[in-house]
């Protein structure tokens, strides 16, 4: 038992005191600063996922691979700002000169201020987003402190948090899970694959019809989405203090 106490003492305090205001390492590719001088079509040719549109960089397709930043550091720089989540698909497009992400509108009129239950469906992802989602409940990030939990049964859930691009074989299971969640229910898309199909968007093995029927209320970009992005996004969505 004493070796256990020694291990615990040496380990120290691991929880991040305030995950909403902590500063992340400077190397982390968060919100990009897109210069007005940037040639968007040139950047698009460079991008492995063609994430640049004529309006800017679509964070929903961006894999945060850093190729554009390494090749053209004066056109685009990624800041260590993990607050990337938004509440609609259009707001994910970062225009040149944009310096901050738009606010997230809270849902449910304050009903979810202190408690929010999510059911995760992993629909064909690479497991990185699932690991990051799982990490958001660990001792460091501890999303549970805001009353957010990831539940085992969709019947207990308020929202479905989708990770993965929705492979054909998971499409029906995803629909079944969504149907099993009682109203009021919300859809959260976590990661580039969930938002846009990610690197798999052009694959013939996907079936993203589900997203044509149902509108998501939170989009958390990233490849994978960082636990701090997840914590921040959901915290804002709940309307928590």
């Amino acid at each position, binding site marked *: 038992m004493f070796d256990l106490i020694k291990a615990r003492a040496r380990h120290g305090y691991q929880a991040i005191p305030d995950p909403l205001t902590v500063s992340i390492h400077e190397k982390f590719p968060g919100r990009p600063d897109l210069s007005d001088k940037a040639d968007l079509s040139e950047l698009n040719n460079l991008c492995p996922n063609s994430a640049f549109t004529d309006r800017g960089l679509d964070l929903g397709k961006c894999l945060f691979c850093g190729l554009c930043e390494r090749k053209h550091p004066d056109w685009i720089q990624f800041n260590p700002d993990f607050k990337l989540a938004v509440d609609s698909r259009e707001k994910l497009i970062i225009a040149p000169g944009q310096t901050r992400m738009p606010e997230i509108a809270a849902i449910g009129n304050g009903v979810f201020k202190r408690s929010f239950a999510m059911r995760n469906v992993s629909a064909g992802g690479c497991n990185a987003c699932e690991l990051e989602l799982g*990490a958001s409940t660990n001792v460091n990030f501890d999303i549970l402190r805001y009353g957010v939990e990831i539940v085992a049964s969709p019947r207990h859930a308020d929202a479905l948090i989708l990770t993965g691009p929705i*492979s054909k074989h*998971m499409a029906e299971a995803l629909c079944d899970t969504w149907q099993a969640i009682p109203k009021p229910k919300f859809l959260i898309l976590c990661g580039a694959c969930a938002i846009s199909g990610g690197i798999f968007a052009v694959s013939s093995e996907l079936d993203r019809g589900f997203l044509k029927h149902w509108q998501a209320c939170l989009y958390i970009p990233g490849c994978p989405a*960082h636990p701090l992005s997840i914590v921040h996004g959901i915290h804002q969505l709940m309307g928590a203090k």
Partner: protein
Amino acid sequence: MTRNPFSVQNPDQLEFLEFSERLSRLIAAGYSPLHYFGTPQGLLYSIMGKSGSLELLCSVFPTGGSYPAFSQKILAFTMFERLLYEEYGIKPEGHPWLKAVRKHLPGQDQHSDYEFLASESPALHEVGVGPVHAGVIEPGHFRFICKGEIVEHLEIQLGYQHRGVEELMLKGDITRKCSLAESIAGDTAIGHNLAYCLLIEELCGIKASATGTRNIALEMERVAMHLADLSALAADVAYIMGQNLFAALRTTVINSSLAICGSRFGKRWLCPGGVNYSISTAQAEVLRKTLQGVETQIIDCAEAMFANSSVLSRFDDTGKLKFEDAVSLGLTGITAKASGVMADARMDYPLDDESIFIPFTENAGDVYARAHLRYKEALQSLKLVLSELDKRDLDDPLPQELGKPRPDTIACSIVEGWRGCIVHMAKTDAIGKVEWYKIVDPSLMNWQALALVMRGTGISDFPICNKSFDLSYCGSDL
């Protein structure tokens, strides 16, 4: 000893009968298949390996669309022959378990048409779990045949994560597929990306720079994922101390990855030709201090955990995998090493000629052996990283220029990912465009081990058996 990665120009296309005979001789000599597959061009390839030497055989499809199954000789062929039948309809006669792997068999319509082994006895009942599982975990369907609480038989159906990675590799420029390679299995981003980069470098005929940094990346991924597994195993036996300690240590390790390349999973770190982000002297110093602290704490916590009687009572003798089964099924990685099989790609197929690597093994083959082996391997990897930090030159050069892939070349790269042996193979056509790209994640074979060890175990031990293997659903499904 064959080089790793290796390439071959225009291998001989044998007649199927001769192919079959040579394959049988290799099997008799103790070779085991690293991959065996068909291509849209109507050719069969098999790459057989045994302690460092590799043999590549090529043949045309057998006439009549069927042949006597190689699985009857060694079971290591079972998954590959099932895939061959599923993709190209070539029937292995006498295959002991001819079922779909990722999609559905030629006679069926859908993925959900998979037929499970069922029992006629009303006393036995079935438990079906998934695809949507209770935790944040990838999808798969597990069908147990249970006698009360004891599992008589487990059958696993995967394919829910099938995204068509091998087809996506062929779209566009093959040298710009790092992001795709990293997403084969996101927790093995460096393992698969390294295999991909080595393959591309071999196809282009160049030697990469910054091999030391690449090794550091690979070993850090191994440490991080072994810590994740130890944390999850501790959580499953309600050893909360271990769960939290190991999880926090993993965060420390992967944050060190983030400090170098910007990604906790090591995505965007490697590229064909070298690395995108090198480790400066200052970064090396910080990394060294961090990892030394992590090493001490891992030893503290793991020793406490493995001395705890409640943990041991759950781990000991649970989910035993026999040595003979591990060998006959061709398993790799922790799954095999914990049952006494001395097989590790770092030893069998080293990337450079100087290093001698001796992997650790355990003999019991139970959950304890796999957990303890992860602990030992994590410490071994940390030592490797620290020694690599000591001997490396400062600041890696920029990635080497690639050039164009050589035409008519088959290349193969083998990397020991943290789960086991990763194999990437590709072939270029006459103009240097890639004709096919084949990937084997160690999970493809290792899932059979889980099905085997659950027999005779209580169904409530399934979570720790599953976590003790911690296999990739998406790596197997591609």
